[in-house]
């Protein structure tokens, strides 16, 4: 499938999802004089729908979806998964422990760097940023059950 066709279809589906959600939430459309909370989303969804049709119809590109160069997806997925772990663990394990673990995983497992430099880098980054933000700038960062 060509990139522009796929993009057009995705935009149309997104517009449909917005309209469906507005309908599901029973958001009032309002009147012209007093537009309701669904008015602007409906206008934008209509615009998105039209844009989707135009993108698909006016496509001049011959590039295909498979040829867009997804070769790095495994690496990207590993990075995203590590970040998701941070989001999940941040307020449970505390900032320093979570960030140190995430850095070790990224460096040692994803980037295949030697473990000792990875550990030192992770500890330095987690400790240094904690000191800068929490201690110096007084941005309260989460502490875990072990005081970290």
């Amino acid at each position, binding site marked *: 499938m060509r*990139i522009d066709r*796929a*993009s057009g279809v995705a935009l149309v589906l*997104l517009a449909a999802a*917005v309209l469906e*959600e507005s309908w599901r*939430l029973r*958001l*009032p459309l309002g*009147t*012209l*004089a*007093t*537009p*309701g*909370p669904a*008015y*602007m*989303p409906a206008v*934008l*969804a209509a*615009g*998105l729908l039209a*844009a989707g049709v*135009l*993108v698909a119809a006016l496509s001049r590109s011959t*590039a295909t979806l498979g040829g*867009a*160069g*997804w*070769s*790095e*997806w495994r*690496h*990207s997925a590993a*990075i*995203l998964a590590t*970040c*998701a772990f*941070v*989001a999940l663990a*941040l307020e449970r394990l505390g900032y320093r422990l979570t*960030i140190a673990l*995430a*850095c070790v995983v*990224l*460096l040692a497992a994803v*980037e295949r*760097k030697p473990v000792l430099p990875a550990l030192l*880098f992770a500890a330095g*980054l*987690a400790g240094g*940023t904690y000191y*800068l*933000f929490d201690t110096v*700038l*007084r*941005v*309260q*960062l989460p502490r875990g059950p072990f005081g970290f």
Partner: protein
Amino acid sequence: MLETLGNLGLGFSVALSPSILIYAFVGCLVGTLVGVLPGVGPLAGISLLLPATFGLDATRAIVMLAGIYYGAMYGGSTTSILMRIPGEAASVMTCIDGYAMARNGRGGAALALAAVGSYVAGTASVVGLMLLAPPLAEFALRFGPPEYLALLLFGLLVLAYMSSGSMVKSLAMAALGLLLGMVGIDQMSGYFRFAYGFVELGDGLGVVPVAVGLFGVAEILATAGKATPPNVIKPRLRQLLPSQTEWRESAAPIARGTVLGFLIGILPGSAHIISSFVSYALEKRLSRHPERFGQGAVAGLAGPESANNSATSGAFVPMLALGVPSGPIPAVMLAAMMVHGVSPGPLLIQQQPQLFWGFIASMYVGNLVLLILNLPLVGLFVNILRVPYPYLYPAILVFSILGVYAVNGSVVDVWIMLVMGLLGWVLRKLDFETAPIVLGVVLAPMIELSLRQSLAMSDGRYAIFVQRPISAVLLVLGVGLVLLNVYSSVRRSLDWRARLTLTEKGEEAR
């Protein structure tokens, strides 16, 4: 004019006193350091440091807070250039060509140009502030909801028209950004929209997680997994300064960005953000080599950087002249002034000339301090590029997460950043620009409110937008841009057909 110069002399006598100079320096230094940290933008910086000024007298406090403000505005460009993390939404456009320059080994030059551009824009716009404050503020007061809506739509159309790719795709991305900006509680009715059961989304999607995700995280996802990771750059001393060509190429964009930023800055809303987007688009359209934009074009860095710093001074016009803040940052500044017993407005100049003119003069001094402070720091900051990418990107990710978390102390913002990072990565593959999404998220609440207020004012008649001269002119200009784009598309398509016909005829003749 003579009276203005006399008043300015009074201002300088206040601003150049050693104690005021120290506070201007401290404000600029702290502002720069705060601005360099991703996610901690000028608003958070001023809010965090406001209590520290309670013990000072009004003049010192305002001078220091103003220093933090424009120091943070400049500092935001450092992470944008070196790491592609926008410290705040106004630095989004700096990310594009500033980061490309850094990857081309011109990181030092990019930082120096940003510093000089910011200085020129900051200083020139203070002259504008001094001379034009009252009449411009009065003009800005003529803007009602229909004019705002027309202006905001015009801004979106300008950005879409001047983008490198398809205008339809850019407008689709702007619409997507506007829809993302609708997430959360509706301001007028209180309805929850598109939150999918997440109470934390009640306040909507923050601009910082969206911008950091679409630019910073998406860049890491696209780059870290490449078979050949980016080279380590070891800048030499002479590479830290811009070349003669770079100075020449940046002069006109800095001048245009300064004027544009100041004029847009006066208007309420997130003017400094809009000004940087419009400036980038303008430079790209005026350039003889638009294909260089995105690859490290000097104009793509110098224009938006100057515009967003110039808008910073422009934003002070309605605040000082009328006591009307033009955005969240001037609102905090206004609150800070009131805490110190100063009431900005038409009477401020008459009642407290020392404070008003001292503040104006301190802005000149502050901009100079910022330049003196930042040029030597270029050599220090640019060393970040020496770090090998496998070590650099985890650090960038940590700073992104930290910066995004620090804004509201909420993990939901970290999730938003990750989702936006994934979206930005996919959109890059599909050849969509992501900058219009950020602008859409910023403008969504203002556009919706203006539309609904306008329709309420006119009892549902859309004619209100063409009956009022300012909005009519802006809308006609916007429609003109769309028609121009359609015309050039049709012409390109006809050229293609003509070429094909000629080729076919040639083949038949053979």
